[in-house]
Protein backbone atom coordinates (compact mmCIF):
# COMPACT_ATOMS: atom_id res chain seq x y z
CA UNK A 1 0.00 0.00 0.00
CA UNK A 2 1.36 3.39 -0.95
CA UNK A 3 1.87 5.81 1.87
CA UNK A 4 -0.51 8.53 0.82
CA UNK A 5 -1.83 11.03 3.26
CA UNK A 6 -5.19 9.26 3.30
CA UNK A 7 -3.51 6.03 4.28
CA UNK A 8 -1.53 7.97 6.84
CA UNK A 9 -4.79 9.17 8.29
CA UNK A 10 -6.07 5.61 8.44
CA UNK A 11 -2.95 4.65 10.30
CA UNK A 12 -3.81 7.21 12.95
CA UNK A 13 -6.26 4.66 14.23
CA UNK A 14 -3.31 2.46 15.15
CA UNK A 15 -2.33 4.90 17.89
CA UNK A 16 -2.99 2.61 20.88
CA UNK A 17 -1.06 -0.21 19.22
CA UNK A 18 1.82 2.12 18.43
CA UNK A 19 1.69 3.33 21.99
CA UNK A 20 1.95 -0.18 23.35
CA UNK A 21 4.79 -0.97 20.96
CA UNK A 22 6.63 2.14 22.06
CA UNK A 23 5.93 1.19 25.63
CA UNK A 24 7.59 -2.16 25.12
CA UNK A 25 10.38 -1.10 22.77
CA UNK A 26 11.50 2.28 23.94
CA UNK A 27 11.70 1.59 27.63
CA UNK A 28 14.01 -1.29 26.91
CA UNK A 29 16.12 0.72 24.44
CA UNK A 30 19.68 1.53 25.49
CA UNK A 31 20.39 5.05 26.66
CA UNK A 32 21.89 7.48 24.14
CA UNK A 33 25.67 7.71 24.25
CA UNK A 34 25.73 11.46 24.73
CA UNK A 35 23.31 13.59 26.71
CA UNK A 36 22.59 16.34 24.21
CA UNK A 37 20.14 17.97 26.60
CA UNK A 38 23.11 18.59 28.89
CA UNK A 39 25.50 19.46 26.05
CA UNK A 40 23.23 22.11 24.53
CA UNK A 41 21.78 23.10 27.92
CA UNK A 42 19.11 25.81 27.95
CA UNK A 43 19.01 25.93 24.17
CA UNK A 44 17.93 22.29 24.07
CA UNK A 45 15.25 23.05 26.65
CA UNK A 46 14.11 26.10 24.68
CA UNK A 47 13.80 24.03 21.51
CA UNK A 48 11.85 21.39 23.41
CA UNK A 49 9.61 24.07 24.91
CA UNK A 50 9.08 25.59 21.48
CA UNK A 51 7.58 22.33 20.20
CA UNK A 52 5.51 21.89 23.36
CA UNK A 53 4.22 25.45 23.19
CA UNK A 54 3.39 25.07 19.52
CA UNK A 55 1.57 21.77 19.63
CA UNK A 56 -0.24 22.85 16.45
CA UNK A 57 2.96 21.94 14.59
CA UNK A 58 2.58 18.24 15.44
CA UNK A 59 -1.14 18.44 14.65
CA UNK A 60 -0.52 20.17 11.31
CA UNK A 61 1.83 17.44 10.17
CA UNK A 62 -1.25 15.23 10.11
CA UNK A 63 0.72 11.99 10.53
CA UNK A 64 0.20 9.12 12.94
CA UNK A 65 2.16 9.43 16.21
CA UNK A 66 5.25 7.52 15.14
CA UNK A 67 5.65 9.46 11.89
CA UNK A 68 4.97 12.72 13.72
CA UNK A 69 7.66 11.83 16.26
CA UNK A 70 10.13 11.10 13.49
CA UNK A 71 9.30 14.30 11.62
CA UNK A 72 9.74 16.46 14.72
CA UNK A 73 12.98 14.68 15.62
CA UNK A 74 14.27 15.22 12.08
CA UNK A 75 13.87 18.98 12.47
CA UNK A 76 14.71 19.19 16.18
CA UNK A 77 18.50 19.81 15.95
CA UNK A 78 17.77 22.74 13.64
CA UNK A 79 15.33 24.14 16.20
CA UNK A 80 18.15 24.05 18.76
CA UNK A 81 20.38 25.90 16.34
CA UNK A 82 17.66 28.44 15.62
CA UNK A 83 17.13 28.97 19.35
CA UNK A 84 20.81 29.87 19.55
CA UNK A 85 20.79 32.19 16.54
CA UNK A 86 17.16 33.32 16.74
CA UNK A 87 16.94 35.89 13.99
CA UNK A 88 20.19 37.58 14.95
CA UNK A 89 21.91 37.03 11.66
CA UNK A 90 21.65 39.38 8.77
CA UNK A 91 19.46 37.38 6.42
CA UNK A 92 17.98 40.24 4.47
CA UNK A 93 20.84 40.62 1.99
CA UNK A 94 20.92 36.87 1.36
CA UNK A 95 17.21 36.79 0.71
CA UNK A 96 17.50 39.73 -1.65
CA UNK A 97 20.42 38.13 -3.50
CA UNK A 98 18.44 34.90 -3.83
CA UNK A 99 15.35 36.71 -5.12
CA UNK A 100 17.46 38.83 -7.49
CA UNK A 101 19.92 36.31 -8.87
CA UNK A 102 18.87 32.86 -7.63
CA UNK A 103 20.51 29.98 -5.88
CA UNK A 104 24.00 30.43 -7.32
CA UNK A 105 24.31 33.76 -5.47
CA UNK A 106 22.84 32.83 -2.13
CA UNK A 107 21.62 29.76 -0.31
CA UNK A 108 21.00 30.11 3.36
CA UNK A 109 19.16 28.50 6.25
CA UNK A 110 16.14 30.33 7.51
CA UNK A 111 13.57 30.00 10.28
CA UNK A 112 12.97 27.53 13.07
CA UNK A 113 13.56 24.52 10.84
CA UNK A 114 16.56 26.17 9.16
CA UNK A 115 15.33 25.44 5.66
CA UNK A 116 17.20 26.59 2.59
CA UNK A 117 15.62 27.95 -0.58
CA UNK A 118 17.28 25.11 -2.53
CA UNK A 119 15.62 22.62 -0.17
CA UNK A 120 12.26 24.28 -0.83
CA UNK A 121 12.93 24.24 -4.59
CA UNK A 122 13.65 20.51 -4.45
CA UNK A 123 10.59 19.79 -2.32
CA UNK A 124 8.34 21.77 -4.65
CA UNK A 125 9.70 20.07 -7.74
CA UNK A 126 9.44 16.55 -6.26
CA UNK A 127 6.00 17.18 -4.85
CA UNK A 128 4.79 18.28 -8.28
CA UNK A 129 6.44 15.25 -9.89
CA UNK A 130 5.76 12.43 -7.46
CA UNK A 131 2.22 13.05 -6.29
CA UNK A 132 -0.95 12.55 -8.27
CA UNK A 133 -3.67 15.21 -8.35
CA UNK A 134 -5.72 13.01 -6.00
CA UNK A 135 -2.84 12.75 -3.54
CA UNK A 136 -2.30 16.50 -3.74
CA UNK A 137 -5.98 17.07 -3.08
CA UNK A 138 -5.76 14.77 -0.04
CA UNK A 139 -2.72 16.70 1.19
CA UNK A 140 -4.55 20.01 0.68
CA UNK A 141 -1.44 21.59 -0.82
CA UNK A 142 -1.71 22.61 -4.46
CA UNK A 143 1.00 21.98 -7.02
CA UNK A 144 3.69 24.65 -6.94
CA UNK A 145 4.21 27.07 -9.80
CA UNK A 146 7.21 26.05 -11.85
CA UNK A 147 10.01 28.15 -13.30
CA UNK A 148 12.76 30.32 -11.89
CA UNK A 149 11.64 33.92 -11.92
CA UNK A 150 12.14 36.77 -9.48
CA UNK A 151 8.45 36.57 -8.56
CA UNK A 152 8.57 32.84 -7.82
CA UNK A 153 11.74 33.18 -5.79
CA UNK A 154 10.22 36.05 -3.82
CA UNK A 155 7.12 33.94 -3.09
CA UNK A 156 9.37 31.08 -1.96
CA UNK A 157 11.30 33.33 0.42
CA UNK A 158 8.04 34.64 1.84
CA UNK A 159 6.89 31.05 2.38
CA UNK A 160 10.15 30.21 4.15
CA UNK A 161 9.64 33.24 6.39
CA UNK A 162 6.34 31.71 7.52
CA UNK A 163 6.52 28.98 10.18
CA UNK A 164 3.26 27.46 8.94
CA UNK A 165 4.84 27.00 5.55
CA UNK A 166 7.98 25.53 7.10
CA UNK A 167 5.74 22.93 8.74
CA UNK A 168 4.15 22.22 5.35
CA UNK A 169 7.60 21.79 3.78
CA UNK A 170 8.55 19.40 6.60
CA UNK A 171 5.38 17.44 5.97
CA UNK A 172 6.13 17.27 2.25
CA UNK A 173 9.71 16.21 3.01
CA UNK A 174 8.41 13.24 5.03
CA UNK A 175 5.95 12.32 2.31
CA UNK A 176 8.57 12.59 -0.45
CA UNK A 177 11.04 10.51 1.56
CA UNK A 178 8.26 7.95 2.00
CA UNK A 179 7.83 7.81 -1.76
CA UNK A 180 11.51 7.84 -2.67
CA UNK A 181 12.54 5.21 -0.13
CA UNK A 182 9.31 3.26 0.00
CA UNK A 183 11.04 -0.03 -0.74
CA UNK A 184 13.98 0.43 1.60
CA UNK A 185 13.91 -1.83 4.60
CA UNK A 186 15.16 -0.01 7.64
CA UNK A 187 16.42 -2.05 10.56
CA UNK A 188 14.09 -0.22 12.87
CA UNK A 189 12.48 3.16 13.39
CA UNK A 190 15.69 4.62 14.79
CA UNK A 191 17.64 3.70 11.67
CA UNK A 192 14.88 5.22 9.57
CA UNK A 193 15.07 8.38 11.68
CA UNK A 194 18.87 8.51 11.25
CA UNK A 195 18.46 8.21 7.51
CA UNK A 196 15.70 10.82 7.31
CA UNK A 197 17.50 13.26 9.62
CA UNK A 198 20.72 13.01 7.62
CA UNK A 199 18.79 13.43 4.38
CA UNK A 200 17.11 16.51 5.85
CA UNK A 201 20.32 18.23 6.85
CA UNK A 202 22.55 17.23 3.94
CA UNK A 203 20.02 17.14 1.10
CA UNK A 204 17.76 14.21 0.31
CA UNK A 205 18.44 14.49 -3.41
CA UNK A 206 22.05 13.38 -2.86
CA UNK A 207 20.92 9.77 -3.05
CA UNK A 208 20.91 6.86 -0.65
CA UNK A 209 24.62 6.04 -0.89
CA UNK A 210 25.74 9.58 -0.03
CA UNK A 211 23.13 9.97 2.69
CA UNK A 212 24.28 6.72 4.31
CA UNK A 213 27.89 7.92 4.16
CA UNK A 214 26.92 11.26 5.67
CA UNK A 215 25.11 9.46 8.49
CA UNK A 216 28.56 8.86 10.01
CA UNK A 217 29.86 12.43 9.80
CA UNK A 218 29.85 15.23 12.36
CA UNK A 219 28.86 18.60 10.94
CA UNK A 220 26.25 19.90 13.36
CA UNK A 221 27.15 22.73 15.74
CA UNK A 222 25.41 25.58 17.48
CA UNK A 223 28.12 28.22 17.41
CA UNK A 224 27.77 31.34 15.33
CA UNK A 225 31.22 30.88 13.84
CA UNK A 226 34.35 28.91 14.59
CA UNK A 227 32.77 25.84 16.23
CA UNK A 228 35.12 23.91 18.50
CA UNK A 229 32.99 20.79 18.59
CA UNK A 230 30.76 19.31 15.94
CA UNK A 231 28.15 16.64 16.43
CA UNK A 232 26.38 14.06 14.36
CA UNK A 233 23.03 15.54 13.35
CA UNK A 234 21.25 12.19 13.39
CA UNK A 235 22.54 11.42 16.90
CA UNK A 236 20.89 14.58 18.20
CA UNK A 237 17.65 13.73 16.39
CA UNK A 238 17.66 10.21 17.81
CA UNK A 239 18.39 11.49 21.32
CA UNK A 240 15.37 13.81 21.14
CA UNK A 241 13.17 11.08 19.67
CA UNK A 242 14.09 8.63 22.42
CA UNK A 243 13.45 11.18 25.14
CA UNK A 244 10.08 12.06 23.68
CA UNK A 245 8.98 8.51 23.04
CA UNK A 246 10.23 7.39 26.45
CA UNK A 247 8.14 10.08 28.06
CA UNK A 248 5.18 9.14 25.86
CA UNK A 249 5.71 5.46 26.57
CA UNK A 250 5.61 6.12 30.30
CA UNK A 251 2.26 7.83 29.80
CA UNK A 252 0.98 4.98 27.61
CA UNK A 253 2.20 2.39 30.11
CA UNK A 254 0.62 4.28 32.96
CA UNK A 255 -2.62 4.50 30.99
CA UNK A 256 -2.45 0.78 30.23
CA UNK A 257 -1.84 0.01 33.89
CA UNK A 258 -4.86 2.09 34.82
CA UNK A 259 -7.02 0.33 32.21
CA UNK A 260 -5.77 -3.04 33.38
CA UNK A 261 -6.38 -2.14 36.99
CA UNK A 262 -9.80 -0.74 36.12
CA UNK A 263 -10.71 -3.91 34.22
CA UNK A 264 -9.57 -6.10 37.09
CA UNK A 265 -11.42 -3.94 39.55
CA UNK A 266 -14.61 -4.06 37.53
CA UNK A 267 -14.40 -0.35 36.92
CA UNK A 268 -13.80 -0.62 33.20
CA UNK A 269 -17.34 0.19 32.20
CA UNK A 270 -17.31 3.31 30.11
CA UNK A 271 -13.53 3.34 29.75
CA UNK A 272 -12.78 3.83 26.09
CA UNK A 273 -9.43 3.54 24.31
Amino acid sequence: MKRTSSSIRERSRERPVVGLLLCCLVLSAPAAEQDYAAIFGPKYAEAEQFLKRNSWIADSLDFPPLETGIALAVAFPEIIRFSVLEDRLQMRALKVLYVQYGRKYADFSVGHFQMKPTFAEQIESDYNRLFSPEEKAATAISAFATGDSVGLRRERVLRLDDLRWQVRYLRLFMMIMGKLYEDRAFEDDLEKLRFYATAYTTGYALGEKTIRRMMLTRHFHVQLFFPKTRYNYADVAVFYFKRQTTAAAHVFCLADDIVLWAAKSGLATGVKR
Partner: protein
Amino acid sequence: MKEATLLLALLVFVALAGLPALTQGPQPVRKVVYSLEPGEKFLQPESAISISATKESVILVLSKGKGDKGPPFFVIQDGNKKGPFKKLKDVMAAAYDGQDQEPGIFRDCAAYRPQDEQPSSDAVPTVSEAGGGQTVVFKGNTYGPYTGVFDVKGTPDGSRAYFTANDKDKMWFICSDGRKVQVAGEPREILFSSDGKNALVACASSSENSGFVYTIDGKKFGPFGEDFNECWFPVGSNSFFFLVGDQLYMNGTPTIKIERFDPCDFYPSADGKKYALFTYENLVFSDGMKYPFPLKIVSFQENGQTVIKWVALENEKDVVVYQRAI
Protein backbone atom coordinates in the same frame (compact mmCIF):
# COMPACT_ATOMS: atom_id res chain seq x y z
CA MET B 1 -17.78 63.77 -30.69
CA LYS B 2 -15.34 60.98 -31.45
CA GLU B 3 -12.51 63.50 -31.90
CA ALA B 4 -13.36 65.20 -28.61
CA THR B 5 -13.24 61.84 -26.82
CA LEU B 6 -9.86 61.09 -28.39
CA LEU B 7 -8.55 64.51 -27.38
CA LEU B 8 -9.79 64.01 -23.83
CA ALA B 9 -8.14 60.58 -23.69
CA LEU B 10 -4.90 62.07 -24.97
CA LEU B 11 -5.03 64.81 -22.33
CA VAL B 12 -5.65 62.26 -19.57
CA PHE B 13 -2.77 60.14 -20.87
CA VAL B 14 -0.39 63.11 -20.94
CA ALA B 15 -1.48 64.17 -17.47
CA LEU B 16 -0.97 60.66 -16.05
CA ALA B 17 2.35 60.21 -17.86
CA GLY B 18 3.57 63.44 -16.34
CA LEU B 19 2.46 62.49 -12.82
CA PRO B 20 5.54 60.46 -11.84
CA ALA B 21 7.76 63.36 -12.81
CA LEU B 22 5.76 65.66 -10.55
CA THR B 23 5.83 63.23 -7.63
CA GLN B 24 9.39 62.12 -8.15
CA GLY B 25 11.58 62.75 -5.16
CA PRO B 26 15.24 63.67 -5.08
CA GLN B 27 17.50 61.64 -7.31
CA PRO B 28 19.83 59.41 -5.33
CA VAL B 29 23.57 59.84 -5.38
CA ARG B 30 25.01 56.69 -6.97
CA LYS B 31 28.55 55.39 -6.59
CA VAL B 32 30.11 52.10 -7.64
CA VAL B 33 32.41 51.22 -4.74
CA TYR B 34 33.75 47.94 -6.07
CA SER B 35 33.36 45.50 -8.96
CA LEU B 36 33.56 41.85 -8.01
CA GLU B 37 36.33 40.03 -9.81
CA PRO B 38 35.57 36.67 -11.42
CA GLY B 39 35.16 34.09 -8.65
CA GLU B 40 34.61 36.67 -5.89
CA LYS B 41 31.48 36.49 -3.81
CA PHE B 42 30.12 38.08 -0.68
CA LEU B 43 31.25 35.94 2.21
CA GLN B 44 28.29 33.93 3.49
CA PRO B 45 29.44 32.03 6.56
CA GLU B 46 26.70 30.12 8.39
CA SER B 47 23.86 31.80 6.56
CA ALA B 48 25.04 35.31 7.36
CA ILE B 49 26.38 37.81 4.90
CA SER B 50 29.03 40.31 5.73
CA ILE B 51 28.03 43.72 4.41
CA SER B 52 27.95 46.66 6.76
CA ALA B 53 27.16 50.27 6.14
CA THR B 54 27.22 53.39 8.24
CA LYS B 55 26.86 57.04 7.34
CA GLU B 56 30.61 57.19 6.72
CA SER B 57 31.59 53.80 5.45
CA VAL B 58 30.73 50.56 3.64
CA ILE B 59 32.58 47.35 4.47
CA LEU B 60 32.33 44.11 2.51
CA VAL B 61 33.99 40.79 3.20
CA LEU B 62 34.55 38.69 0.09
CA SER B 63 35.68 35.16 -0.57
CA LYS B 64 37.27 33.91 -3.73
CA GLY B 65 37.54 30.26 -2.87
CA LYS B 66 35.42 27.26 -3.59
CA GLY B 67 31.75 28.14 -3.26
CA ASP B 68 31.09 31.05 -0.93
CA LYS B 69 33.28 29.89 1.93
CA GLY B 70 36.78 30.68 0.74
CA PRO B 71 39.66 31.14 1.40
CA PRO B 72 41.15 33.42 0.22
CA PHE B 73 39.22 36.24 1.88
CA PHE B 74 39.34 39.97 1.21
CA VAL B 75 38.04 43.10 2.91
CA ILE B 76 36.71 45.98 0.83
CA GLN B 77 36.41 49.13 2.87
CA ASP B 78 35.19 52.20 1.03
CA GLY B 79 36.59 50.84 -2.21
CA ASN B 80 39.98 49.85 -0.79
CA LYS B 81 40.89 46.19 -0.89
CA LYS B 82 42.78 44.37 1.88
CA GLY B 83 43.95 40.77 1.71
CA PRO B 84 44.20 37.99 0.87
CA PHE B 85 43.47 36.41 4.25
CA LYS B 86 43.64 32.68 4.75
CA LYS B 87 41.54 32.42 7.89
CA LEU B 88 37.98 33.55 8.51
CA LYS B 89 39.01 34.85 11.94
CA ASP B 90 41.70 37.02 10.42
CA VAL B 91 39.51 38.56 7.74
CA MET B 92 36.72 39.31 10.23
CA ALA B 93 39.26 40.92 12.55
CA ALA B 94 40.66 42.96 9.68
CA ALA B 95 37.17 44.08 8.70
CA TYR B 96 35.73 44.95 12.09
CA ASP B 97 38.20 44.81 14.95
CA GLY B 98 38.62 48.01 16.87
CA GLN B 99 36.01 49.83 14.84
CA ASP B 100 32.83 51.27 16.16
CA GLN B 101 30.75 49.50 13.55
CA GLU B 102 28.39 46.60 13.71
CA PRO B 103 30.04 43.35 12.69
CA GLY B 104 28.01 43.28 9.53
CA ILE B 105 26.78 39.77 10.06
CA PHE B 106 24.03 40.57 12.52
CA ARG B 107 20.51 41.40 11.53
CA ASP B 108 19.57 44.91 10.65
CA CYS B 109 16.16 46.01 11.78
CA ALA B 110 14.79 49.51 11.48
CA ALA B 111 12.72 48.97 14.63
CA TYR B 112 14.54 49.15 17.95
CA ARG B 113 14.60 45.69 19.47
CA PRO B 114 17.00 45.63 22.40
CA GLN B 115 16.88 41.88 23.14
CA ASP B 116 20.50 41.41 22.14
CA GLU B 117 21.76 44.31 24.20
CA GLN B 118 21.93 43.60 27.89
CA PRO B 119 22.79 46.03 30.67
CA SER B 120 25.73 45.20 32.90
CA SER B 121 24.89 42.63 35.56
CA ASP B 122 24.58 45.25 38.33
CA ALA B 123 21.94 47.11 36.30
CA VAL B 124 19.61 44.22 35.58
CA PRO B 125 16.26 44.67 37.35
CA THR B 126 15.10 41.64 39.32
CA VAL B 127 11.78 40.62 40.84
CA SER B 128 11.72 39.27 44.39
CA GLU B 129 9.01 37.71 46.49
CA ALA B 130 8.23 39.78 49.56
CA GLY B 131 5.47 39.37 52.13
CA GLY B 132 3.00 37.71 49.82
CA GLY B 133 3.73 40.24 47.09
CA GLN B 134 6.55 41.10 44.74
CA THR B 135 9.18 43.82 44.62
CA VAL B 136 11.42 45.08 41.85
CA VAL B 137 15.06 45.60 42.79
CA PHE B 138 17.15 47.84 40.55
CA LYS B 139 20.63 49.19 41.28
CA GLY B 140 20.17 48.76 45.01
CA ASN B 141 16.73 50.38 45.15
CA THR B 142 13.59 48.41 45.95
CA TYR B 143 10.24 49.26 44.38
CA GLY B 144 7.07 47.84 45.90
CA PRO B 145 5.87 45.51 47.24
CA TYR B 146 3.13 45.04 44.68
CA THR B 147 0.45 42.38 44.44
CA GLY B 148 2.12 41.20 41.24
CA VAL B 149 4.77 42.40 38.84
CA PHE B 150 4.20 41.85 35.12
CA ASP B 151 6.81 42.87 32.55
CA VAL B 152 10.20 44.18 33.75
CA LYS B 153 12.75 45.75 31.40
CA GLY B 154 16.13 47.36 31.96
CA THR B 155 17.60 49.74 29.39
CA PRO B 156 20.88 48.52 27.87
CA ASP B 157 22.76 51.58 29.19
CA GLY B 158 21.69 50.59 32.70
CA SER B 159 20.14 53.98 33.38
CA ARG B 160 16.54 52.95 33.86
CA ALA B 161 14.20 50.08 34.63
CA TYR B 162 10.60 49.97 33.48
CA PHE B 163 7.97 47.65 34.86
CA THR B 164 4.24 47.08 35.07
CA ALA B 165 2.73 46.01 38.37
CA ASN B 166 -0.65 45.85 40.05
CA ASP B 167 -1.26 47.13 43.51
CA LYS B 168 -4.58 47.07 45.33
CA ASP B 169 -6.57 46.51 42.13
CA LYS B 170 -4.77 49.30 40.31
CA MET B 171 -2.35 48.70 37.47
CA TRP B 172 0.77 50.84 37.16
CA PHE B 173 3.41 51.52 34.53
CA ILE B 174 6.52 52.61 36.40
CA CYS B 175 10.01 53.89 35.60
CA SER B 176 12.86 53.77 38.10
CA ASP B 177 13.42 57.51 37.49
CA GLY B 178 10.16 58.28 39.32
CA ARG B 179 7.66 58.44 36.45
CA LYS B 180 4.54 56.46 37.26
CA VAL B 181 1.33 56.13 35.24
CA GLN B 182 -1.88 54.37 36.13
CA VAL B 183 -3.05 52.10 33.33
CA ALA B 184 -6.08 49.89 32.77
CA GLY B 185 -6.42 46.42 31.30
CA GLU B 186 -3.84 43.72 30.75
CA PRO B 187 -0.41 45.19 30.02
CA ARG B 188 1.60 43.73 27.19
CA GLU B 189 5.33 44.00 26.59
CA ILE B 190 7.00 47.28 27.60
CA LEU B 191 8.78 49.06 24.76
CA PHE B 192 11.33 51.81 25.14
CA SER B 193 13.34 54.02 22.80
CA SER B 194 16.97 53.37 21.97
CA ASP B 195 18.13 56.11 24.37
CA GLY B 196 15.94 54.53 27.07
CA LYS B 197 14.17 57.80 27.88
CA ASN B 198 10.78 57.19 26.33
CA ALA B 199 8.65 54.11 26.93
CA LEU B 200 5.16 52.83 26.36
CA VAL B 201 2.95 49.90 27.07
CA ALA B 202 -0.14 48.70 25.23
CA CYS B 203 -2.90 47.38 27.44
CA ALA B 204 -5.73 45.12 26.33
CA SER B 205 -9.11 45.66 27.91
CA SER B 206 -10.41 42.47 29.43
CA SER B 207 -14.07 43.40 29.08
CA GLU B 208 -14.03 44.74 25.54
CA ASN B 209 -12.13 43.81 22.44
CA SER B 210 -10.09 46.96 22.60
CA GLY B 211 -6.90 48.40 23.96
CA PHE B 212 -5.05 51.57 24.85
CA VAL B 213 -1.47 52.76 24.49
CA TYR B 214 0.05 54.48 27.53
CA THR B 215 3.32 56.38 27.49
CA ILE B 216 5.52 56.73 30.56
CA ASP B 217 4.89 60.48 30.37
CA GLY B 218 1.20 59.92 31.07
CA LYS B 219 -0.34 60.13 27.61
CA LYS B 220 -3.10 57.71 26.71
CA PHE B 221 -4.22 56.81 23.18
CA GLY B 222 -7.21 54.74 22.11
CA PRO B 223 -9.38 52.78 22.37
CA PHE B 224 -8.21 50.73 19.40
CA GLY B 225 -9.93 47.62 18.12
CA GLU B 226 -8.77 44.34 16.65
CA ASP B 227 -7.03 46.07 13.75
CA PHE B 228 -4.48 47.55 16.14
CA ASN B 229 -1.00 46.31 15.25
CA GLU B 230 2.22 46.33 17.16
CA CYS B 231 3.92 49.48 18.44
CA TRP B 232 7.57 50.18 17.90
CA PHE B 233 10.30 52.75 18.32
CA PRO B 234 12.48 53.14 15.22
CA VAL B 235 16.21 52.80 15.84
CA GLY B 236 17.68 56.10 17.00
CA SER B 237 14.30 57.78 17.52
CA ASN B 238 12.31 58.87 20.54
CA SER B 239 9.09 58.82 18.55
CA PHE B 240 6.89 55.76 18.56
CA PHE B 241 4.68 54.36 15.82
CA PHE B 242 1.78 52.00 15.57
CA LEU B 243 -0.60 50.92 12.85
CA VAL B 244 -4.36 50.71 13.24
CA GLY B 245 -5.67 49.07 10.09
CA ASP B 246 -3.99 51.03 7.31
CA GLN B 247 -3.58 54.18 9.41
CA LEU B 248 -0.09 54.89 10.69
CA TYR B 249 0.19 56.80 13.96
CA MET B 250 3.27 58.67 15.11
CA ASN B 251 3.35 59.53 18.82
CA GLY B 252 -0.37 58.78 18.86
CA THR B 253 -1.23 61.18 16.02
CA PRO B 254 -2.48 59.86 12.64
CA THR B 255 0.04 60.53 9.86
CA ILE B 256 -0.37 58.54 6.65
CA LYS B 257 -2.32 55.58 5.24
CA ILE B 258 -0.18 52.59 4.39
CA GLU B 259 -0.58 48.82 3.96
CA ARG B 260 0.63 46.55 6.72
CA PHE B 261 4.39 46.00 6.87
CA ASP B 262 7.12 44.70 9.14
CA PRO B 263 8.47 47.56 11.30
CA CYS B 264 11.97 46.14 10.73
CA ASP B 265 11.61 47.25 7.12
CA PHE B 266 10.19 50.73 7.73
CA TYR B 267 12.37 53.86 7.74
CA PRO B 268 10.33 56.96 8.65
CA SER B 269 11.25 60.60 8.17
CA ALA B 270 11.64 62.71 11.27
CA ASP B 271 8.04 63.98 11.00
CA GLY B 272 6.69 60.51 10.24
CA LYS B 273 4.97 61.70 7.09
CA LYS B 274 7.46 60.27 4.61
CA TYR B 275 9.15 56.93 4.63
CA ALA B 276 11.21 54.33 2.84
CA LEU B 277 10.04 50.71 2.95
CA PHE B 278 12.09 47.63 2.19
CA THR B 279 10.70 44.67 0.24
CA TYR B 280 12.70 41.75 -1.09
CA GLU B 281 12.48 43.33 -4.53
CA ASN B 282 12.64 47.06 -3.93
CA LEU B 283 13.33 49.95 -1.64
CA VAL B 284 10.12 51.93 -2.01
CA PHE B 285 9.95 55.61 -1.08
CA SER B 286 6.72 57.31 -0.12
CA ASP B 287 7.03 59.56 -3.18
CA GLY B 288 6.56 56.47 -5.34
CA MET B 289 10.17 55.95 -6.40
CA LYS B 290 11.43 52.36 -6.30
CA TYR B 291 15.03 51.16 -6.31
CA PRO B 292 15.65 47.48 -6.92
CA PHE B 293 17.20 44.88 -4.64
CA PRO B 294 18.69 46.76 -1.69
CA LEU B 295 21.11 44.48 0.18
CA LYS B 296 21.89 46.72 3.12
CA ILE B 297 20.05 49.81 4.30
CA VAL B 298 21.07 52.41 6.85
CA SER B 299 19.34 55.65 7.77
CA PHE B 300 20.71 58.75 9.47
CA GLN B 301 19.91 62.40 10.03
CA GLU B 302 21.75 65.02 7.99
CA ASN B 303 20.95 68.73 7.64
CA GLY B 304 17.55 68.18 9.21
CA GLN B 305 16.64 65.43 6.78
CA THR B 306 16.39 61.66 7.13
CA VAL B 307 18.84 60.17 4.66
CA ILE B 308 18.73 56.58 3.44
CA LYS B 309 21.91 54.93 2.25
CA TRP B 310 21.80 51.51 0.67
CA VAL B 311 24.04 48.98 -1.03
CA ALA B 312 23.02 47.02 -4.14
CA LEU B 313 24.67 44.47 -6.40
CA GLU B 314 24.12 45.40 -10.04
CA ASN B 315 25.04 43.52 -13.22
CA GLU B 316 26.00 40.60 -10.97
CA LYS B 317 29.28 42.35 -10.13
CA ASP B 318 29.00 46.06 -9.34
CA VAL B 319 28.65 46.93 -5.67
CA VAL B 320 26.80 50.23 -5.76
CA VAL B 321 26.07 52.59 -2.89
CA TYR B 322 23.07 54.90 -3.20
CA GLN B 323 22.06 57.75 -0.96
CA ARG B 324 19.03 60.03 -0.90
CA ALA B 325 16.84 61.90 1.52
CA ILE B 326 13.39 60.49 2.20
